[in-house]
């Protein structure tokens, strides 16, 4: 079977994601509910560095793919002036995703816990497939210092 790399239909970082499973208990009929999709966030009042968020959810809708892949996410402290100077904060362990047909839509959620944000700035979340970035699978989270 020829492998076809999937495309990203939707990608978001949010404060919470809840998987709703219908009475049939069939995950094929389930859906994800995203709560508070994030773009700009503030550290708590009085905190302006070394903040770790208890949990963050990365949600992606992938489709148009065929084959088995390793899916993961990386978080970088971004340098908007010179992207080569982005500093990799960490990456998730790869998780296998598999597409049997191009019409298939995979909704993948990665729950990140105790994510460190050493200082205010832009943090880049990237969706990785077999170690390579997927077009449309990146998002900046702007972290602001907490109010004094």
């Amino acid at each position, binding site marked *: 079977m020829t492998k076809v790399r999937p495309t990203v239909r939707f990608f978001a970082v949010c404060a919470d994601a809840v998987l709703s499973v219908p009475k049939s208990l069939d995950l094929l009929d*389930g859906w994800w509910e995203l709560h508070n999709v994030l773009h700009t966030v*503030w550290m*708590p009042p009085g905190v302006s560095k070394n*903040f770790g968020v208890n949990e963050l959810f990365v949600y992606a809708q992938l489709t148009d793919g065929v084959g088995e892949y390793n899916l993961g996410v990386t978080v970088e402290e971004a340098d908007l002036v010179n992207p080569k100077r982005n500093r990799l904060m960490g990456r998730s362990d790869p998780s296998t995703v598999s597409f049997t047909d191009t019409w*298939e839509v995979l909704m993948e959620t990665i729950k990140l816990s105790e994510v460190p944000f050493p200082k205010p700035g832009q943090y880049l979340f990237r969706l990785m497939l077999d170690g390579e970035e997927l077009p449309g699978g990146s998002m900046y989270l702007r972290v602001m210092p907490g109010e004094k």
Partner: protein
Amino acid sequence: MSEENITYGKFVTKVKTRPAIEVDCSKWADTTTGDWTFGSFVTKNKTRPAIESKLRIPHLRLKVSFMPGVSLETLTAITKAMIEKLCAVAPDLNLAYDTTLSGLSTDSRGATIAVIALKPQTPGMDIDRKLSQLIEAARAAAKKAEDDNEVEIENLELILVS
């Protein structure tokens, strides 16, 4: 397509879901050095309840009430001319004659009432903006019909039905 042919309901989704992949990021930074705070972000989002809207394609309804004594042949010619005039006024709307919403009837005096329904085939265009031009065109077409066919139009109304 008339409203009766539309089935309303919910989408069926066929997606593969599974529980979230859990990742412990506590090792990503050396949290043993320096003071670290763990907690939740503060967000300052502007939100409001969802805007509720129903999508509709408005159509034009031209009602022409003739005085008694107009033959079917004359009536057909008049309505055809009126349709052509209205379509020509708004070419960007791409108006199409809708037979399901159009028709002829007679009132208690035997006078004929013609209803012409025109639906835009370009739904994205602003039909409201064109309405005054269309009303003017309908009036002009009615006047011409009276002069050319020696008939009398008792009443004419053009409304936008949404």
